[in-house]
């Protein structure tokens, strides 16, 4: 991606046209809290497997698992689940590239699966993820963890663990930056049209939603 982008990791300096909603350290506290919540709700994380939804759900799942294993002596396998082939909007857009599905150590059969994604919006990605998951096996139960919940749901889906609820207008954009994929950590919000010009090629993040058939 935009590998050349260097920017302050933590502080007011943001991408032009966007405002920093949450800094790197605030985001890291959110991840810590979510890790604690998963441990609490699952009775210590026994039998829990995290499945990240590409792109940003995968490093996010890894961070969550890392924190969970730091807080408790428990082993949390992490996998990746590509939902592209199961989307209901494939034909509304140009063909989408596929991401990698990685089956977690120990598989998913009989496990408590926590799906992990960065932004929850329409809920369509999660619906596709449930279909994709079914092909891999039969988990004992499935839960959902998201860093940002924007609202605007189009399906009866809700998250079990939420980093932050950020009520936004559908026309706004939310950018989650992760070191692993974007070279910066944090959450930014942009409101078009004022920012439309700045979300061009040098954009380090990824426009998550706004358009009805976008991701999340």
């Amino acid at each position: 991606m935009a590998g050349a982008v260097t920017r302050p990791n933590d502080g007011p300096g943001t991408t032009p046209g966007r405002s920093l909603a949450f800094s790197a350290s605030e985001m890291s506290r959110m991840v810590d809290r979510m890790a604690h919540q998963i441990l609490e709700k699952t009775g210590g994380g026994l039998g829990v497997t995290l499945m990240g939804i590409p792109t940003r759900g995968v490093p996010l799942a890894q961070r969550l698992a890392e924190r969970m294993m730091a807080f408790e002596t428990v082993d949390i396998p992490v996998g990746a689940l590509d939902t592209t082939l199961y989307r209901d909007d494939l034909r509304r857009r140009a063909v989408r590239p596929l991401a990698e599905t990685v089956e977690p150590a120990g598989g998913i059969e009989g496990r408590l699966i926590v799906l992990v994604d960065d932004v929850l919006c329409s809920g369509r990605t999660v619906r596709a993820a449930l279909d994709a998951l079914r092909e891999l096996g039969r988990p004992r139960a499935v839960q959902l963890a998201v860093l940002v919940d924007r609202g605007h749901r189009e399906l009866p889906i809700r998250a079990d663990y939420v980093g932050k609820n950020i009520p936004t207008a559908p026309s706004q954009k939310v950018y989650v930056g992760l070191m692993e994929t974007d070279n910066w950590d944090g959450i930014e919000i942009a409101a078009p049209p004022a920012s439309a010009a700045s979300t061009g090629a040098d954009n380090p993040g990824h426009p998550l939603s706004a358009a009805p058939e976008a991701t999340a």
Partner: protein
Amino acid sequence: MTRHLLAASDLDLKQAIEVLDTADRLDRAIAGREVKKLPPLRGRTVVNLFYEDSTRTRTSFELAAKRLSADVINFSAKGSSVSKGESLKDTALTLEAMGADAVVIRHSLSGAAVRLTNWVQGSVINAGDGTHEHPTQALLDAFTMRRRLRGGTGDLAGLRVTIVGDVLHSRVARSNVGLLTTLGASVTLVAPPTLLPIGVEAWPAKVHYNLDDVLPDSDVVMMLRVQRERMSGGFFPSAREYSRRYGLDVQRMNAMNSSAIIMHPGPMNRGMEIAADVADDVKRSAIVEQVANGVSVRMAVLYLLLGGGDAE
């Protein structure tokens, strides 16, 4: 990708890598599953239009389309209205009226696939036209090389590929030279002068007449089938002489460098261009893998051509 897949040489580097990477993802997505089925082409119709005999290509396309949940209609010239004298155009219009989203065509005349694009709305995939091109074969060959060589890193730059035999009649050779050059490999053709096409010196490939000189410096040795059905005259004195000079036997195989692999697009003439023991060599022969990889590559092509909407 564009709307059709007519020639391997039409693909630029980015598109070729896109197909190969997608094939890899699809292959891994389905490997080890009980139900080998993915949903993205549900409700799409793929027509296999085969004017020439084929086992592996037709079944491979059929399996690929079915694994992506498309509906498949098989149409072969034998036992169809073609034997009553129907032209390619009329057949195409009939298929068009039935609403085919993609037509996979194999024809004995070069250029048949390109012609077909004038008559149908859907995507056209060339599954071999005369002595012209067979792009999915080249893609599956490249896919096989990526998997087998250089620790599966997928980098084919500088790879030395030697293609041996009936280059004149071979659409596989044409497609492979085009695609492998795009991917950065260097191709050497080895054949008797009578089995090289006119103008071969303009191809982006070296030409040699002596197999033994080239073998030790090859990472891949691809043997071509001697296409007797396309031969009307004497291209070589005898099958025995051809086999002695251009056939891959055990002795020649042992002269290859230790990590080199052997490929053949099939169907093989065992004992002619390739010895049975060579074809079945567990360590070097990638021939069975080629067939398996063909399904993944064709799934990728179908997904990339039909998986999206009309965004253009």
